[in-house]
């Protein structure tokens, strides 16, 4: 039998020690009428057979085309050392670091992760990861409500936030006496005028994404000031690569930052595992959910890393905890830490700039094509929306025949967007690929 080391003699010896004749006696306390009525599971296979089956199955997915598909999930470089190091079984087969003495590796890496996330986002505190960008946004909103002592019942979310995150936010908040108001974008940016009229003392927080889902970058300083005037919180979501050049959440005086870490060394993986980033100003740390690592001393005064402020968490506080989260996406946070260390201070900025430059080049070239208009009025970072003289579906299908995943159809996510497509570039796209892409687009529209 796979993965059980018991010989006949072992089993005999163990049964004798226990005082039973057969291991099945150990299940005698389970009455017959409760026993499984069926257990029709296929027979086991050798690992060779299982692998071959999966190889065949994986060939039934098409990942071969040159991709301009983004929308929160991007085809970035993953340095080889990220796989090599996070693939060390001392990391990936370890348990949650509750026993600090036996987990200094994981704990120190998480401390370093926290430092990098704080430095990137300009926030003062962060946890050791959430599930993904959407659940991080939902938890950020719940934090804002707690910080507002439950008296502020409104969360305003900008429709420029990733629509998938907004759906998750709505699900999380549906069971509470709260109102989620979606503020619709005006063209490709936040409707600041309407928003300013909505901000009052009933608002717990306003969540926005910068660059937003259309790739547009805006200045939110006026909004954030208005929020702070009524003691409401600013929740900023972003795509972390953009933090390489764009103003951080700290610099715009946001109170909570959330985002998805996929672009920091995670595979696309059909959507997961990635991880969520959640960070905040230090004064809100006791409202932050999830694990937090801190530095302390051991008995001999040596530097030691431990999980800290655990009185916020479910295993101590049960129904009074800040969240029910237990398992997080630790291994993914480790990958991000390795990714960011390999790129470093200079490299990370360069990477961000290259994404910006390639996207600007593509935008410039596409803007020259008859039948295509650039939808964004605001400056953009690594992606933008094109407006076509044919339907988005036709465009995507025809480009696929030419060897491209040409972008994201927006019609399912935004009303009236039947002929608009979100097009993204990363540092992985070469000039030749971009030029080819533009040539093929010309043949279609």
């Amino acid at each position, binding site marked *: *039998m796979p*993965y*059980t080391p*018991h010989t006949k003699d072992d089993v005999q010896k163990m049964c004798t020690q*226990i005082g039973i004749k057969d291991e*099945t*006696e*150990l*299940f005698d306390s389970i009455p017959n009428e409760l026993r499984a009525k069926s257990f*029709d599971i*296929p*027979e086991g296979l050798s690992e060779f057979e*299982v692998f071959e*089956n999966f190889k065949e199955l*994986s060939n039934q*997915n098409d990942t071969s085309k040159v*991709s301009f598909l983004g*929308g929160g999930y991007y*085809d970035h*470089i993953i340095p080889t050392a990220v796989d090599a190091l996070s693939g*060390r*079984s001392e990391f*990936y087969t370890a*348990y*949650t670091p509750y*026993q600090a003495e*036996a987990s*200094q*590796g994981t704990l*120190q890496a998480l401390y*370093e992760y926290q430092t990098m996330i704080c430095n990137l986002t*300009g926030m003062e505190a962060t946890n050791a990861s959430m599930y993904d960008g959407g*659940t991080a946004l939902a938890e950020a909103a719940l934090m804002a409500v707690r910080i507002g002592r439950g008296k502020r019942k409104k969360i305003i979310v900008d429709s420029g936030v990733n629509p998938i995150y907004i*759906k*998750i936010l709505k699900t999380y908040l549906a*069971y509470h006496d709260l109102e989620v108001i979606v503020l619709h974008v005006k063209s490709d940016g936040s409707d600041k005028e309407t928003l300013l009229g909505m901000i009052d003392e009933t608002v717990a927080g306003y969540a926005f994404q910068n660059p937003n889902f259309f790739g547009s*970058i805006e200045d939110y300083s006026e909004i954030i000031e208005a929020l702070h005037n009524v003691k409401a919180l600013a929740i900023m979501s972003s795509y972390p690569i953009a933090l390489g*050049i*764009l*103003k951080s959440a700290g610099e715009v005086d946001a109170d909570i930052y959330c985002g998805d870490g996929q672009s920091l060394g995670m595979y696309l993986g*059909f959507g*997961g*595992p990635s991880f969520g980033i959640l960070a905040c100003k230090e004064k809100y*740390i006791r409202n932050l959910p999830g694990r937090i690592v801190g530095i302390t*001393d*051991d008995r*001999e005064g040596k*530097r030691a890393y431990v999980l800290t*402020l655990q009185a916020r968490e*479910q295993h101590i506080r049960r129904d009074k905890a800040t969240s*029910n989260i*237990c398992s997080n996406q630790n*291994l993914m946070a480790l990958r991000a830490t390795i990714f960011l*260390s390999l790129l470093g*201070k*200079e*490299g990370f900025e360069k990477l961000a700039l*290259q994404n910006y430059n390639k996207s600007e080049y593509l935008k410039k070239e596409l803007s020259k094509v008859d039948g295509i208009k650039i939808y964004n009025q605001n400056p953009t970072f690594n992606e933008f929306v094109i407006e076509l003289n044919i339907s988005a579906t036709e465009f995507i299908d025809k480009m696929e025949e030419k060897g491209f995943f040409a972008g*994201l*159809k927006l019609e399912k996510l935004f009303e009236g967007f039947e002929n608009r497509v979100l097009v993204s570039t990363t540092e992985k796209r070469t000039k030749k690929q971009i030029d080819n892409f533009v040539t093929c687009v010309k043949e279609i529209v």
Partner: protein
Amino acid sequence: MSLTLFEKSHNGRHGINIPKQVLDNAPALDSSLLRAAKAELPELSEFDVVRHFTKLSNKNFSIDSNFYPLGSCTMKYNPKVQERVGGLAGLTDIHPHQITNDKPELVQGALKSLSILENYLTELTGMKAFTLTPQAGAHGEMTGIMMVGAYHKKKGNSKRYVIVPDSSHGTNPATAAMVDYDVITVKSNKDGSMDIESFKEAMSDEVAAVMMTVPNTLGLFNPAIKEICDIAHSYDALMYYDGANMNAIMGVIRPGDIGFDVIHLNLHKTFATPHGGGGPGAGPVGVGEKLLEFLPDLRVDFAPEKGYFFTDTSENSIGKISPFFGNYLVLVRALVYMQTLGREGMINASRKAVLNANYILSKLKNHFDAPFKNYCMHECVLSAETLTKEHGVKAMDIAKYLLDFGLHAPTVYFPLIVKESIMIEPTETENIDTIDFFCQKMIDAVELAKSNAEAFKTLPTTLPISRPDETKAARSLNIRWQD
């Protein structure tokens, strides 16, 4: 002293090269949109980074190097083939927005794998259908209780409470609170099962759900489980099965057959996906007839004419709780494990897990307090209460003693209902030699407590650090490196 990456950083040192920039710089963005200075990331060579993290990895216990008898955590061996499959480019490189673009034909293999996994899970548990989207056990619990909420809302039931036993995992009451229910905690009887009389008293029309872990966190099977289900249902309360301990009973019982309405499984426990030092996990949720219409977004379906496809859920769905299909590459690893074991392998895994736990109980029950001396399921609970009273040696001291022998500590101080509890779950993948060694060290610890209790205070001595000052960590908070 273990220096951080930031202390090892040198101005001007470079790590990996990124693809060469062949294009001219685009016009710069307005400075009001740009950050004032580069983010303070460390400056290191690739080799610096490799050595740093390799050294860190050496400061971890892990299942590949150490025995982890952590009760309720099911730290079993993670077969290597899982990683090989999980690394196939045809799986790792699938863009999830192929779903948004409505392109099922590009992801037939992925959808097929999800469909097969769902079939395995429904057959294993006797439930009607599964959502694979929750990303961890607690996330699954929340999904399940949200569906409970949606069910009662649709029926117009006015429900305020979720019942949990006092032996439950902390995530159960915390989950109930996330869905805005108040928690009623029912105490256990002396056999370690939920006290049926107290349960009956707690039941009312205002109870939305009863959350049970089966076998419970004491490693015991509650034979009154069917009666509890029937009572709950008579009030239109739904029965929630916390599958954290599923490893004990694969092929023996199925929650669906007993009458549970909703269940979550921890794939990183029973189905051997790596814990990753705290995640990622995966917490699929199975439902019976009553909750089918409330399942979250997204589901996979199959039609002969068009193959596998994804469906938008019914109008009564609770909505989205994860982007796309949750931790897909974790789900794949679990399926690899299930296909390798097959029917007989799963039955055998549970039997050997229970055998190992009982072997440990029988060897240790006369050396420690054993609140429940009869047979256990996949884990057993001992107590250091007498050792604490007579020698001042606590459960945590025993835990620290073991670390010096390369044995990870069992779960201590949980379940909360046993004083100085030591909860041991060996899993089926450990051999008798390792288990004998562990038992001998546990017995040695008792002897040491009797002869030299003082010795425990300085343990462990062979690990990268000795016992950390947790109070100081919380009082003078240092959670990020600052020069």
